[in-house]
C-alpha cells in the first residue's frame, strides 16, 4: 500500500491540456461545461469495431490513459449502445459485421452522432470494397464525421470527437 501510494505521489498528474478543435470556429473554453450544456451530462461514446485490423482500437484505448484522461473532460465510453450519444466506428465494414453494425446503430437512441475512425472507416482504406468488405462506414450507416490516419493518433480522434459535438451544437 505504501509503495502504491508513494508511486502515485511520485508520478503526479500527467494529464495534458485538451487540444483545440482545429477547424471549429468556437473556442473550446470550458469543454466540460459545453458538453453538459448540450447534453445535460457526460458525452457517452460506444465504440464498434466493424472489421478493423485492431490498430485503430489501440489508439482509441489510449484515450483512456492518464495523458489524455478524457473522462476528466466529460467524455466516457459506455458498454451499451442504448446509453450512447455517439458511435465511434472503426474498420472497413466487413460483410460479416454489416448486420451487427446496422443493429448497433439502430440501438443508439436519437439524436445520435457517428464518427468513422481511420482510413478504413473513412474510405475503406487498404481493404476497400470486395466480396468480404463493404468499404467505408458511410456506405452502410449515416456518418457525421471522419478522421483519417492509419491509425489516427489519440489526439486526432479526440479532436474529431470535439469537432463533431461543436458543429452539431
Amino acid at each position, binding site marked *: 500500500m505504501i509503495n502504491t501510494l508513494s508511486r502515485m505521489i511520485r508520478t503526479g498528474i500527467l494529464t495534458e491540456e485538451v487540444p483545440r478543435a482545429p477547424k471549429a470556429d468556437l473556442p473550446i473554453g470550458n469543454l466540460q461545461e459545453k458538453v453538459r450544456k448540450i447534453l445535460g451530462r457526460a458525452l457517452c461514446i460506444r465504440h464498434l469495431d466493424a472489421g478493423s485490423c485492431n490498430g485503430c482500437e489501440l489508439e*482509441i484505448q489510449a484515450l483512456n490513459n492518464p495523458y489524455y484522461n478524457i473522462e476528466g473532460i466529460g467524455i466516457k465510453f459506455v*458498454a451499451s449502445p442504448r446509453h450512447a450519444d455517439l458511435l465511434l466506428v472503426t474498420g472497413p465494414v466487413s460483410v460479416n459485421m454489416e448486420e451487427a453494425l446496422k443493429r448497433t446503430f439502430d440501438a443508439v437512441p436519437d439524436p445520435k452522432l457517428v464518427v468513422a475512425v481511420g482510413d478504413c472507416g473513412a474510405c475503406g*482504406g487498404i*481493404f476497400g470494397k470486395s*466480396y468480404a468488405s463493404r468499404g467505408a462506414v458511410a456506405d452502410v450507416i449515416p456518418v457525421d464525421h471522419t478522421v483519417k490516419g492509419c491509425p489516427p493518433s489519440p489526439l486526432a480522434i479526440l479532436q474529431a470527437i470535439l469537432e463533431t459535438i461543436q458543429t452539431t451544437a
Partner: protein
Amino acid sequence: MTPGFKEGTKTVPSNLPCSRKRVGAVEWREIAKSVRSAGGRLFALWGTDDRDRDTCFRVFAVYLHSSGVAVVEHEMEGGTKPTYPSLREYFPSALRMERAIFDLLGIKSIEPDHRGWLRHGGWPEDAFPLRRDFDCNNQFAAASAPYPFVQVEGDGVHEIPVGPVHAGTIEPGHFRFSVVGEKVLRLEERLGYKHKGIEKLFETMAQKEGHRLAARISGDSAVAYSWAYCAALEAATGTICPHRAVQLRALALEHERLANHLGDLGALGNDAGFAFGLTHFARMKEDLLRTNQASFSARYLMDFLVPGGVASDLPNDAPRLLLDRYRSFEADLNAMRNTYDNHAGVQDRFRETGILSQETAYNLDAVGLIARASGIPHDLRSDFPWPPYDKMKVKVSSQTSGDVAARVAVRFDEVIESLRICRALVAELRSGDIATVVPDAGPGLLGIGAIEGWRGPVLVALETGSNGSIRRCHPHDPSWQNWPLIEYAILGNLVPDFPLINKSFNLSYSGHDL
C-alpha cells in the same frame, strides 16, 4: 529431422532453415503422425487453386520440428469434389484451418465438421473466393443462417450468448457459454466476423506493395507480419538486407512486443480490480509510443519495414533517448512487478484462474506466449535465430502453472528480456545503408517468412506470379492454434472470470479471420 521426411526434399527460400516435400494422400497423414510423435508442431495449413496451371488443387502443411521448418504439399485433381485427408487426429488445431480452407477454396478434408467458419453467408455457398475464377470485386447480398452451436442439456443448464459486439473497445467475436449457476460447463467460440478478404486482396497487389497489407493483418503485430512478408520476398529473390536495416527491424519488433505486453499487463491488473495497474502501464505504453514517434516517425509501425530494409533511419539523438527510456522502464517494471506480486487481491484473481495444463497445451498445439506459460518453452528467436537474433542469445521465459498468473509472469520476463535486447541493439548499431533494392521475383517461387511476434510465431507464405505480381499469399497467426485453448482454460471457472482469462490470452481476431 523428422523420420520419413528426408528423402525427396528440396530447400525452400526462407529466413529459417526450411525444406519442402510433395506427398500423396497416405504420406500426407503419415508425415503428420511422425512429426507429432517426434515432438514437432503444426505451424500453418492452407490451400491453393492451381487448376489454371496443372488442373490441381493443393494443400500445404507447415511443421516446426527440431531442425527447422518443413513444408509438405499434397495435390488433388480438380474434379467436382476435391478432398484430402484431415490432420485433425494428430493436430487438433487443424480442424478450424480445414474449415477455413473449405470456405475459401471448396476443397474438403475428410472430417465430419463442415460448419462454415469464415463464411457467415456473405457470399453464396457454391462460390469460393480463393478460386482463380472468382473476382475479388464481386459483391453479394448477405444471407445469414443461424449457426448450429453444440447444445448442452441437463438440469439447470442454460446458455449465455456473448457477442459479436462486446462491451469494450475490443474486436468482435461470438462466445456461447453453457453454464450451471456461475460455472462454465462449455464454451464454444464462433469467429470469422472480421473476415475481409485479405488473402484474395494480396493477389491483386504487386510483390513490392504486399508488405503494406501484411502490416495491416493484425495492427498490433504490424512489424512481425511486415517482417515475415519481407523475409519471404527477400528469400525468394536472394536479397540480403543491410545489417543496420536488420538491426532496426529487430528494434521495431521488440518495441512492438514491449507495447503489447505493457498494455496487457495494465489491462490484466484492471480486470483483476486493480485500476492502479492499468493507469501505470497505460502511462508506460504511451511513453513508449511517443518514443516510437520520435525514433521511427510513427507511433504504430505500419509502414516502417519495406522490402529490402526499413523506410527511415533513426534521428541522431535517438540512441540516447532510447537508452534513457529503457532505463526508466526497467526501474518502473521492477517496482510494478513487486506491487503485483505482493497485492493479495490481484494474486487471488490471477492464481489458479484459467489453467491450461502442460498436457492440454501440448495435445492441442499451443504456440507462442501461451505455450511458454504452460511449460512449452519455444521461441523462434532462440530455436532458429535469424539475423540479428543469431547474435542475441535470447533467453526464453517459461512458467509451468499455466494460469493467468503464469501468463502475467511470462509477459514480465519478456519485457525485461526485450529491454536487454533493445539495449544491445542500440549499443551495437552499425552505420550504413538502411535499405537495398529488391528485384522482382520470377513466377512460381515460394518463399517462407517466419518471425516470432509478441503473440508467437507468425508466418507468411508467398508464391510469386509473373511480372512482379503475387500469385498467392497466406499469412498465419498463432491465434489459430491458441483460440481453441480458451475453450478448455475456461472450464470450471466462473463466467465473470472470462474477461480476465480471455485478456490473459489476448488473441487476435483480425489476424485469424483474415
